[in-house]
Protein backbone atom coordinates (compact mmCIF):
# COMPACT_ATOMS: atom_id res chain seq x y z
CA UNK A 1 0.00 0.00 0.00
CA UNK A 2 1.27 3.46 -0.81
CA UNK A 3 1.36 6.16 1.80
CA UNK A 4 -0.06 9.62 1.38
CA UNK A 5 2.44 12.35 2.25
CA UNK A 6 0.30 15.37 1.59
CA UNK A 7 -3.46 15.60 1.44
CA UNK A 8 -5.46 18.75 0.76
CA UNK A 9 -9.16 18.88 1.54
CA UNK A 10 -10.96 21.90 0.10
CA UNK A 11 -8.05 24.10 1.11
CA UNK A 12 -8.91 27.79 0.71
CA UNK A 13 -7.22 31.13 1.19
CA UNK A 14 -8.90 34.51 0.90
CA UNK A 15 -7.05 37.80 0.53
CA UNK A 16 -9.81 40.06 1.87
CA UNK A 17 -12.73 39.00 -0.33
CA UNK A 18 -10.65 37.52 -3.14
CA UNK A 19 -10.24 33.75 -3.19
CA UNK A 20 -6.60 33.22 -4.18
CA UNK A 21 -6.95 29.50 -3.55
CA UNK A 22 -10.47 28.14 -3.78
CA UNK A 23 -11.31 24.75 -2.27
CA UNK A 24 -8.51 22.69 -3.77
CA UNK A 25 -8.24 19.00 -2.92
CA UNK A 26 -5.69 16.39 -3.89
CA UNK A 27 -3.51 13.62 -2.49
CA UNK A 28 0.21 13.30 -3.06
CA UNK A 29 1.78 9.91 -2.59
CA UNK A 30 4.92 9.60 -0.52
CA UNK A 31 8.10 9.77 -2.62
CA UNK A 32 6.50 11.45 -5.63
CA UNK A 33 7.26 14.80 -7.22
CA UNK A 34 4.26 17.03 -7.88
CA UNK A 35 4.50 20.13 -10.07
CA UNK A 36 2.04 22.96 -9.58
CA UNK A 37 1.68 24.79 -12.89
CA UNK A 38 -0.39 27.70 -14.04
CA UNK A 39 -0.30 31.37 -14.98
CA UNK A 40 0.84 34.08 -12.58
CA UNK A 41 -1.76 34.72 -9.94
CA UNK A 42 -3.26 31.23 -10.28
CA UNK A 43 -2.66 30.53 -6.60
CA UNK A 44 0.45 28.34 -6.74
CA UNK A 45 2.57 30.33 -4.34
CA UNK A 46 -0.35 30.96 -2.01
CA UNK A 47 -0.93 27.20 -1.85
CA UNK A 48 2.72 26.56 -0.97
CA UNK A 49 2.71 29.33 1.64
CA UNK A 50 -0.32 27.77 3.32
CA UNK A 51 1.20 24.29 3.25
CA UNK A 52 4.43 25.58 4.79
CA UNK A 53 2.45 27.31 7.60
CA UNK A 54 3.43 30.81 6.46
CA UNK A 55 -0.10 31.88 5.55
CA UNK A 56 -3.23 31.10 7.55
CA UNK A 57 -5.77 28.70 6.10
CA UNK A 58 -9.10 30.47 5.56
CA UNK A 59 -11.06 27.23 5.36
CA UNK A 60 -10.58 23.58 4.53
CA UNK A 61 -7.79 21.35 5.77
CA UNK A 62 -4.52 19.68 4.89
CA UNK A 63 -2.72 16.70 6.35
CA UNK A 64 1.05 16.63 5.99
CA UNK A 65 2.92 13.51 7.14
CA UNK A 66 -0.06 12.62 9.27
CA UNK A 67 -0.32 16.00 11.00
CA UNK A 68 -3.08 18.54 10.61
CA UNK A 69 -1.86 21.79 9.14
CA UNK A 70 -4.49 23.83 10.95
CA UNK A 71 -4.45 22.08 14.33
CA UNK A 72 -0.73 21.44 14.77
CA UNK A 73 1.41 23.63 12.51
CA UNK A 74 4.41 23.16 14.83
CA UNK A 75 4.42 19.39 14.16
CA UNK A 76 4.05 19.96 10.43
CA UNK A 77 7.12 22.23 10.51
CA UNK A 78 9.26 19.39 11.85
CA UNK A 79 8.61 17.32 8.75
CA UNK A 80 8.88 19.86 5.96
CA UNK A 81 11.58 21.83 4.22
CA UNK A 82 10.90 24.95 2.18
CA UNK A 83 12.92 26.90 -0.33
CA UNK A 84 11.21 30.19 -1.13
CA UNK A 85 11.28 31.74 -4.58
CA UNK A 86 13.41 34.60 -3.30
CA UNK A 87 17.04 34.50 -2.33
CA UNK A 88 16.90 32.99 1.14
CA UNK A 89 20.55 32.16 1.75
CA UNK A 90 22.30 34.77 3.86
CA UNK A 91 24.88 36.39 1.58
CA UNK A 92 26.91 37.82 4.43
CA UNK A 93 27.56 34.37 5.88
CA UNK A 94 29.55 31.50 4.40
CA UNK A 95 27.87 28.39 3.05
CA UNK A 96 28.95 26.47 6.12
CA UNK A 97 27.58 29.16 8.45
CA UNK A 98 24.23 29.17 6.66
CA UNK A 99 23.92 25.44 7.28
CA UNK A 100 25.21 25.73 10.84
CA UNK A 101 22.65 28.32 11.92
CA UNK A 102 19.81 26.31 10.40
CA UNK A 103 21.02 23.16 12.12
CA UNK A 104 21.00 25.02 15.43
CA UNK A 105 17.51 26.37 14.82
CA UNK A 106 16.36 22.80 14.25
CA UNK A 107 18.01 21.85 17.53
CA UNK A 108 20.44 19.26 16.10
CA UNK A 109 23.19 18.36 18.55
CA UNK A 110 26.84 18.99 17.79
CA UNK A 111 27.66 15.55 16.48
CA UNK A 112 24.61 15.37 14.24
CA UNK A 113 25.24 18.89 12.98
CA UNK A 114 28.75 18.10 11.91
CA UNK A 115 27.74 14.93 10.12
CA UNK A 116 24.70 16.41 8.43
CA UNK A 117 26.49 19.56 7.23
CA UNK A 118 29.36 17.54 5.75
CA UNK A 119 26.91 15.19 4.00
CA UNK A 120 24.88 17.99 2.52
CA UNK A 121 27.87 20.01 1.34
CA UNK A 122 29.14 16.86 -0.35
CA UNK A 123 25.77 15.99 -1.87
CA UNK A 124 25.35 19.47 -3.32
CA UNK A 125 28.97 19.71 -4.52
CA UNK A 126 29.73 22.66 -2.27
CA UNK A 127 32.38 21.20 0.02
CA UNK A 128 35.25 23.22 -1.42
CA UNK A 129 33.22 26.46 -1.26
CA UNK A 130 31.98 25.91 2.29
CA UNK A 131 34.07 28.71 3.79
CA UNK A 132 33.34 31.27 1.09
CA UNK A 133 30.80 34.01 1.74
CA UNK A 134 27.59 33.26 -0.15
CA UNK A 135 27.53 36.65 -1.87
CA UNK A 136 30.42 35.33 -3.95
CA UNK A 137 28.51 32.17 -5.00
CA UNK A 138 26.97 31.74 -8.47
CA UNK A 139 23.18 31.54 -8.82
CA UNK A 140 23.25 27.77 -9.20
CA UNK A 141 25.45 27.33 -6.13
CA UNK A 142 23.16 29.54 -4.06
CA UNK A 143 20.15 27.45 -5.07
CA UNK A 144 21.94 24.23 -4.16
CA UNK A 145 22.93 25.72 -0.81
CA UNK A 146 19.35 26.83 -0.16
CA UNK A 147 18.06 23.35 -0.86
CA UNK A 148 20.78 21.87 1.35
CA UNK A 149 19.69 24.24 4.14
CA UNK A 150 16.09 23.12 3.76
CA UNK A 151 17.21 19.48 4.03
CA UNK A 152 19.25 19.85 7.23
CA UNK A 153 16.66 18.09 9.41
CA UNK A 154 15.91 15.37 6.84
CA UNK A 155 12.37 16.50 6.07
CA UNK A 156 10.02 14.03 4.45
CA UNK A 157 8.36 16.66 2.29
CA UNK A 158 10.21 19.41 0.46
CA UNK A 159 8.49 22.50 -0.99
CA UNK A 160 10.28 24.35 -3.78
CA UNK A 161 8.84 27.60 -5.11
CA UNK A 162 10.11 28.10 -8.68
CA UNK A 163 13.45 26.46 -7.95
CA UNK A 164 15.20 27.15 -11.26
CA UNK A 165 13.94 30.64 -12.10
CA UNK A 166 16.86 32.84 -13.18
CA UNK A 167 19.36 30.01 -13.57
CA UNK A 168 21.33 29.38 -16.75
CA UNK A 169 20.62 26.13 -18.64
CA UNK A 170 23.63 24.29 -17.20
CA UNK A 171 22.81 25.23 -13.60
CA UNK A 172 19.18 24.34 -14.25
CA UNK A 173 20.07 20.87 -15.47
CA UNK A 174 22.43 20.16 -12.61
CA UNK A 175 19.74 21.20 -10.15
CA UNK A 176 17.22 18.88 -11.81
CA UNK A 177 19.69 16.07 -11.36
CA UNK A 178 20.01 16.84 -7.65
CA UNK A 179 16.24 16.97 -7.19
CA UNK A 180 15.89 13.59 -8.91
CA UNK A 181 18.65 12.12 -6.75
CA UNK A 182 16.90 13.39 -3.68
CA UNK A 183 13.78 11.53 -4.69
CA UNK A 184 15.61 8.32 -5.60
CA UNK A 185 18.12 8.14 -2.77
CA UNK A 186 16.04 9.40 0.13
CA UNK A 187 12.46 8.99 -0.99
CA UNK A 188 11.75 12.66 -0.33
CA UNK A 189 8.32 13.82 -1.42
CA UNK A 190 8.62 17.05 -3.38
CA UNK A 191 6.03 19.68 -4.22
CA UNK A 192 7.27 22.39 -6.54
CA UNK A 193 5.86 25.26 -8.55
CA UNK A 194 7.19 26.16 -11.97
CA UNK A 195 6.51 28.07 -15.16
CA UNK A 196 8.91 25.90 -17.04
CA UNK A 197 7.10 23.14 -18.90
CA UNK A 198 10.33 21.33 -19.70
CA UNK A 199 11.10 21.28 -15.99
CA UNK A 200 7.68 19.90 -15.16
CA UNK A 201 8.05 17.25 -17.84
CA UNK A 202 11.53 16.20 -16.71
CA UNK A 203 11.00 16.20 -12.97
CA UNK A 204 7.40 15.61 -12.09
CA UNK A 205 5.52 12.37 -11.65
CA UNK A 206 2.30 14.32 -11.52
CA UNK A 207 1.42 17.82 -12.61
CA UNK A 208 -1.50 19.91 -11.48
CA UNK A 209 -2.61 22.96 -13.48
CA UNK A 210 -3.97 25.78 -11.39
CA UNK A 211 -6.12 28.55 -12.74
CA UNK A 212 -7.92 31.29 -10.78
CA UNK A 213 -7.45 29.45 -7.51
CA UNK A 214 -8.71 26.09 -8.76
CA UNK A 215 -6.99 22.94 -9.90
CA UNK A 216 -8.31 22.45 -13.39
CA UNK A 217 -6.29 19.43 -14.41
CA UNK A 218 -4.16 16.86 -12.66
CA UNK A 219 -2.43 13.83 -14.14
CA UNK A 220 0.93 12.41 -15.18
CA UNK A 221 2.77 14.48 -17.81
CA UNK A 222 2.52 11.59 -20.27
CA UNK A 223 -1.24 11.24 -19.89
CA UNK A 224 -1.77 14.98 -20.29
CA UNK A 225 0.32 15.17 -23.44
CA UNK A 226 -1.42 12.15 -24.92
CA UNK A 227 -4.72 14.00 -24.79
CA UNK A 228 -3.27 16.69 -27.05
CA UNK A 229 -1.93 14.45 -29.77
CA UNK A 230 1.22 12.44 -30.44
CA UNK A 231 3.69 15.31 -30.55
CA UNK A 232 2.14 17.58 -27.95
CA UNK A 233 4.22 19.18 -25.21
CA UNK A 234 3.11 20.42 -21.82
CA UNK A 235 3.23 23.90 -23.36
CA UNK A 236 0.36 22.89 -25.61
CA UNK A 237 -1.56 21.57 -22.62
CA UNK A 238 -0.91 24.79 -20.72
CA UNK A 239 -2.06 27.02 -23.57
CA UNK A 240 -4.95 24.75 -24.37
CA UNK A 241 -6.27 24.95 -20.86
CA UNK A 242 -5.56 28.47 -19.82
CA UNK A 243 -4.49 30.43 -22.91
CA UNK A 244 -7.94 31.31 -24.15
CA UNK A 245 -9.25 32.67 -20.92
CA UNK A 246 -6.42 34.57 -19.29
CA UNK A 247 -5.00 37.99 -19.78
CA UNK A 248 -1.23 38.19 -19.47
CA UNK A 249 -0.62 37.32 -15.89
CA UNK A 250 1.04 39.03 -13.00
CA UNK A 251 0.96 42.48 -11.50
CA UNK A 252 3.61 45.02 -10.55
CA UNK A 253 4.48 43.35 -7.26
CA UNK A 254 4.86 40.00 -8.95
CA UNK A 255 7.03 41.40 -11.74
CA UNK A 256 9.21 43.07 -9.13
CA UNK A 257 9.62 39.84 -7.24
CA UNK A 258 10.52 37.85 -10.35
CA UNK A 259 12.99 40.43 -11.62
CA UNK A 260 14.70 40.50 -8.25
CA UNK A 261 14.96 36.74 -8.26
CA UNK A 262 16.33 36.74 -11.78
CA UNK A 263 18.98 39.27 -10.84
CA UNK A 264 20.61 36.76 -8.50
CA UNK A 265 24.24 36.76 -9.54
CA UNK A 266 25.34 34.10 -11.89
Amino acid at each position, binding site marked *: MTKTAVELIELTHYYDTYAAVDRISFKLESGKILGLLGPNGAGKSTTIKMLTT*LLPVTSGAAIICGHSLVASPALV*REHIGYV*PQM*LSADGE*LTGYENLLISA*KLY*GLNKEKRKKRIAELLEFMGLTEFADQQVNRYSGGMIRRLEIATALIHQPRVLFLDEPTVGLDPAARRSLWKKIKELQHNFGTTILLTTHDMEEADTLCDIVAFMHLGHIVLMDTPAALKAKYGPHATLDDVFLGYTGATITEGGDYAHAKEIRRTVSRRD
Partner: protein
Amino acid sequence: MHMPKKLEGRSLDVIKTVLQALAIVEADIRKLRHDPIELFTRMIQPAIWLLIFGQAMANARAIPVMESSYLDYIAPGILAQSVLFISIFYGIALIWDRDMGILQKILVTPTPRVVLVLGRSMAAGVRSLSQIIVVYAISYFLGIHLRLDLLSILGVLAMMLLGGALFSTLSLIIASVVKKRERFMGIGQILTMPLFFASNALYPITLMPGWLQTLSIVNPLSYQVDGLRYLMIVGEASHFGLLTDFGVTIAIYALLVAIATAIYPKILY
Protein backbone atom coordinates in the same frame (compact mmCIF):
# COMPACT_ATOMS: atom_id res chain seq x y z
CA MET B 1 4.20 12.09 40.19
CA HIS B 2 3.34 13.77 36.91
CA MET B 3 4.31 17.25 38.00
CA PRO B 4 8.09 16.90 38.06
CA LYS B 5 8.14 15.33 34.61
CA LYS B 6 6.02 18.12 33.22
CA LEU B 7 8.21 20.73 34.86
CA GLU B 8 11.29 19.04 33.52
CA GLY B 9 9.83 19.11 30.02
CA ARG B 10 9.08 22.78 30.37
CA SER B 11 12.54 23.72 31.55
CA LEU B 12 13.99 21.70 28.67
CA ASP B 13 11.80 23.72 26.32
CA VAL B 14 13.11 26.92 27.86
CA ILE B 15 16.71 25.81 27.39
CA LYS B 16 15.99 24.81 23.80
CA THR B 17 14.36 28.17 23.11
CA VAL B 18 17.31 30.06 24.58
CA LEU B 19 19.77 28.00 22.50
CA GLN B 20 17.77 28.70 19.35
CA ALA B 21 17.68 32.44 20.14
CA LEU B 22 21.44 32.31 20.68
CA ALA B 23 21.80 30.77 17.20
CA ILE B 24 20.21 33.94 15.79
CA VAL B 25 22.59 36.07 17.86
CA GLU B 26 25.45 33.91 16.61
CA ALA B 27 24.46 34.49 12.99
CA ASP B 28 24.60 38.21 13.66
CA ILE B 29 27.97 38.06 15.38
CA ARG B 30 29.38 35.99 12.52
CA LYS B 31 28.18 38.65 10.09
CA LEU B 32 29.94 41.31 12.14
CA ARG B 33 33.09 39.25 12.04
CA HIS B 34 32.96 39.20 8.24
CA ASP B 35 32.22 42.92 8.08
CA PRO B 36 32.92 44.88 11.27
CA ILE B 37 32.55 48.36 9.68
CA GLU B 38 29.23 48.95 11.42
CA LEU B 39 30.86 48.76 14.81
CA PHE B 40 32.99 51.77 13.86
CA THR B 41 30.30 53.87 12.22
CA ARG B 42 28.20 53.39 15.36
CA MET B 43 30.91 55.11 17.36
CA ILE B 44 30.80 58.39 15.44
CA GLN B 45 27.53 59.80 16.68
CA PRO B 46 28.18 59.53 20.43
CA ALA B 47 31.66 60.97 19.85
CA ILE B 48 30.20 64.02 18.15
CA TRP B 49 27.61 64.55 20.88
CA LEU B 50 30.16 64.36 23.64
CA LEU B 51 32.92 66.34 21.96
CA ILE B 52 30.83 69.12 20.41
CA PHE B 53 27.46 69.43 22.12
CA GLY B 54 28.71 68.28 25.51
CA GLN B 55 31.76 70.54 25.61
CA ALA B 56 29.87 73.58 24.35
CA MET B 57 27.01 73.17 26.82
CA ALA B 58 29.40 72.48 29.67
CA ASN B 59 31.11 75.80 29.03
CA ALA B 60 27.81 77.63 28.73
CA ARG B 61 26.77 76.36 32.16
CA ALA B 62 23.17 76.77 30.97
CA ILE B 63 21.76 73.72 32.66
CA PRO B 64 22.04 73.53 36.43
CA VAL B 65 22.87 69.98 37.45
CA MET B 66 23.59 69.58 41.11
CA GLU B 67 27.00 68.62 42.39
CA SER B 68 28.41 67.48 39.09
CA SER B 69 29.84 68.89 35.92
CA TYR B 70 27.52 68.90 32.93
CA LEU B 71 29.76 66.47 31.06
CA ASP B 72 29.45 64.01 33.94
CA TYR B 73 25.72 64.48 33.72
CA ILE B 74 25.21 63.88 30.02
CA ALA B 75 27.79 61.13 29.28
CA PRO B 76 25.35 58.36 30.33
CA GLY B 77 22.57 60.15 28.45
CA ILE B 78 24.67 60.20 25.27
CA LEU B 79 25.46 56.52 25.66
CA ALA B 80 21.78 55.60 26.01
CA GLN B 81 20.80 57.94 23.19
CA SER B 82 23.35 56.52 20.78
CA VAL B 83 21.89 53.06 21.28
CA LEU B 84 18.33 54.32 20.91
CA PHE B 85 19.10 56.10 17.63
CA ILE B 86 20.42 52.93 16.02
CA SER B 87 18.16 50.34 17.63
CA ILE B 88 15.00 52.20 16.62
CA PHE B 89 15.86 51.46 12.98
CA TYR B 90 16.73 47.80 13.56
CA GLY B 91 13.30 46.65 12.36
CA ILE B 92 14.25 47.44 8.80
CA ALA B 93 16.26 44.21 8.88
CA LEU B 94 12.97 42.35 9.37
CA ILE B 95 11.48 43.97 6.26
CA TRP B 96 14.66 43.21 4.37
CA ASP B 97 14.63 39.56 5.50
CA ARG B 98 10.98 39.29 4.51
CA ASP B 99 11.75 40.58 1.02
CA MET B 100 14.73 38.25 0.72
CA GLY B 101 13.03 35.09 2.01
CA ILE B 102 15.31 34.71 5.03
CA LEU B 103 12.39 35.34 7.38
CA GLN B 104 10.32 32.70 5.60
CA LYS B 105 13.17 30.25 6.00
CA ILE B 106 13.18 30.80 9.78
CA LEU B 107 9.38 30.74 10.10
CA VAL B 108 9.11 27.26 8.56
CA THR B 109 11.43 25.80 11.22
CA PRO B 110 9.78 24.44 14.38
CA THR B 111 11.38 27.18 16.50
CA PRO B 112 8.84 28.99 18.67
CA ARG B 113 7.86 32.39 17.26
CA VAL B 114 9.42 34.17 20.24
CA VAL B 115 12.89 32.92 19.25
CA LEU B 116 13.28 35.33 16.39
CA VAL B 117 12.27 38.33 18.52
CA LEU B 118 14.56 37.36 21.39
CA GLY B 119 17.44 36.51 19.06
CA ARG B 120 17.11 39.61 16.95
CA SER B 121 16.76 41.98 19.89
CA MET B 122 19.65 40.43 21.80
CA ALA B 123 21.79 40.71 18.68
CA ALA B 124 20.93 44.41 18.51
CA GLY B 125 21.94 44.71 22.15
CA VAL B 126 25.28 43.05 21.44
CA ARG B 127 25.93 45.42 18.54
CA SER B 128 25.33 48.37 20.85
CA LEU B 129 28.12 47.30 23.17
CA SER B 130 30.74 48.78 20.81
CA GLN B 131 29.39 52.20 21.69
CA ILE B 132 30.34 51.73 25.33
CA ILE B 133 33.99 51.59 24.31
CA VAL B 134 33.98 54.92 22.51
CA VAL B 135 31.93 56.73 25.15
CA TYR B 136 34.18 55.46 27.93
CA ALA B 137 37.34 56.34 25.99
CA ILE B 138 36.23 59.90 25.22
CA SER B 139 34.85 60.34 28.72
CA TYR B 140 38.18 59.35 30.15
CA PHE B 141 40.03 61.97 28.12
CA LEU B 142 37.46 64.65 28.94
CA GLY B 143 38.06 64.01 32.62
CA ILE B 144 34.57 62.67 33.27
CA HIS B 145 34.46 60.88 36.63
CA LEU B 146 33.90 57.28 35.54
CA ARG B 147 33.25 54.41 37.91
CA LEU B 148 35.68 51.77 36.73
CA ASP B 149 35.04 48.92 39.19
CA LEU B 150 34.02 45.60 37.66
CA LEU B 151 30.54 45.47 39.16
CA SER B 152 29.60 48.91 37.81
CA ILE B 153 30.89 48.05 34.37
CA LEU B 154 28.92 44.79 34.33
CA GLY B 155 25.87 46.81 35.34
CA VAL B 156 26.43 49.20 32.44
CA LEU B 157 26.81 46.26 30.03
CA ALA B 158 23.57 44.72 31.29
CA MET B 159 21.65 47.98 31.00
CA MET B 160 23.02 48.61 27.50
CA LEU B 161 22.07 45.12 26.33
CA LEU B 162 18.58 45.61 27.72
CA GLY B 163 18.23 49.09 26.23
CA GLY B 164 19.36 47.98 22.78
CA ALA B 165 17.07 44.95 22.99
CA LEU B 166 14.10 47.01 24.16
CA PHE B 167 14.23 49.66 21.44
CA SER B 168 15.01 47.16 18.69
CA THR B 169 11.95 45.15 19.76
CA LEU B 170 9.88 48.33 19.54
CA SER B 171 11.36 48.72 16.07
CA LEU B 172 10.40 45.15 15.10
CA ILE B 173 6.83 45.95 16.13
CA ILE B 174 6.77 49.09 13.99
CA ALA B 175 8.20 47.18 11.02
CA SER B 176 5.58 44.44 11.41
CA VAL B 177 2.81 47.03 11.38
CA VAL B 178 3.96 49.33 8.56
CA LYS B 179 5.49 46.51 6.46
CA LYS B 180 7.25 48.84 4.01
CA ARG B 181 10.73 50.34 4.15
CA GLU B 182 9.74 53.90 3.20
CA ARG B 183 6.96 54.17 5.77
CA PHE B 184 9.19 52.59 8.37
CA MET B 185 11.98 55.13 7.98
CA GLY B 186 9.50 58.00 8.41
CA ILE B 187 8.11 56.58 11.64
CA GLY B 188 11.58 55.86 13.01
CA GLN B 189 12.48 59.51 12.47
CA ILE B 190 9.30 60.70 14.16
CA LEU B 191 9.97 58.57 17.25
CA THR B 192 13.62 59.23 17.98
CA MET B 193 13.47 62.92 18.85
CA PRO B 194 10.52 62.79 21.31
CA LEU B 195 12.04 59.74 23.01
CA PHE B 196 15.35 61.56 23.34
CA PHE B 197 14.15 65.02 24.36
CA ALA B 198 11.33 63.81 26.61
CA SER B 199 13.82 62.01 28.79
CA ASN B 200 16.42 62.84 31.41
CA ALA B 201 19.30 62.29 28.94
CA LEU B 202 20.29 65.95 28.55
CA TYR B 203 18.61 67.71 31.48
CA PRO B 204 16.97 66.72 34.76
CA ILE B 205 13.28 65.91 34.69
CA THR B 206 12.69 68.55 37.36
CA LEU B 207 13.54 71.31 34.89
CA MET B 208 10.72 70.29 32.55
CA PRO B 209 7.17 71.68 32.41
CA GLY B 210 4.60 69.38 34.00
CA TRP B 211 3.30 67.73 30.82
CA LEU B 212 6.83 66.89 29.68
CA GLN B 213 7.65 65.46 33.09
CA THR B 214 4.74 63.06 32.68
CA LEU B 215 6.05 61.99 29.28
CA SER B 216 9.54 61.49 30.70
CA ILE B 217 8.27 59.27 33.44
CA VAL B 218 6.57 56.88 31.01
CA ASN B 219 9.57 56.96 28.66
CA PRO B 220 11.70 53.80 29.02
CA LEU B 221 14.80 55.78 27.99
CA SER B 222 14.57 57.77 31.26
CA TYR B 223 14.97 54.60 33.33
CA GLN B 224 17.85 53.40 31.22
CA VAL B 225 19.64 56.74 31.54
CA ASP B 226 18.90 56.91 35.26
CA GLY B 227 20.42 53.49 35.84
CA LEU B 228 23.42 54.24 33.62
CA ARG B 229 24.03 57.53 35.37
CA TYR B 230 24.33 55.81 38.72
CA LEU B 231 26.42 52.92 37.38
CA MET B 232 28.73 54.99 35.23
CA ILE B 233 29.54 58.20 37.11
CA VAL B 234 31.19 58.64 40.47
CA GLY B 235 28.90 60.39 42.93
CA GLU B 236 25.74 60.39 40.79
CA ALA B 237 22.61 59.22 42.53
CA SER B 238 19.85 57.23 40.89
CA HIS B 239 16.64 59.27 40.80
CA PHE B 240 14.22 56.33 40.59
CA GLY B 241 16.41 53.71 42.31
CA LEU B 242 18.48 51.11 40.47
CA LEU B 243 15.98 48.35 41.16
CA THR B 244 13.19 50.39 39.61
CA ASP B 245 15.40 51.23 36.63
CA PHE B 246 16.09 47.59 35.85
CA GLY B 247 12.59 46.47 36.84
CA VAL B 248 10.82 48.94 34.55
CA THR B 249 13.24 48.27 31.67
CA ILE B 250 12.82 44.50 31.93
CA ALA B 251 9.05 44.76 32.28
CA ILE B 252 8.70 46.99 29.22
CA TYR B 253 11.06 44.75 27.24
CA ALA B 254 9.02 41.66 28.17
CA LEU B 255 5.80 43.40 27.17
CA LEU B 256 7.25 44.49 23.83
CA VAL B 257 8.60 40.96 23.18
CA ALA B 258 5.11 39.54 23.78
CA ILE B 259 3.54 42.05 21.37
CA ALA B 260 6.24 41.56 18.73
CA THR B 261 5.93 37.76 18.93
CA ALA B 262 2.20 37.96 18.34
CA ILE B 263 2.35 40.26 15.34
CA TYR B 264 5.59 39.84 13.39
CA PRO B 265 4.64 36.71 11.39
CA LYS B 266 1.85 38.85 9.88
CA ILE B 267 4.48 40.87 8.02
CA LEU B 268 4.22 38.11 5.40
CA TYR B 269 0.50 38.53 4.68
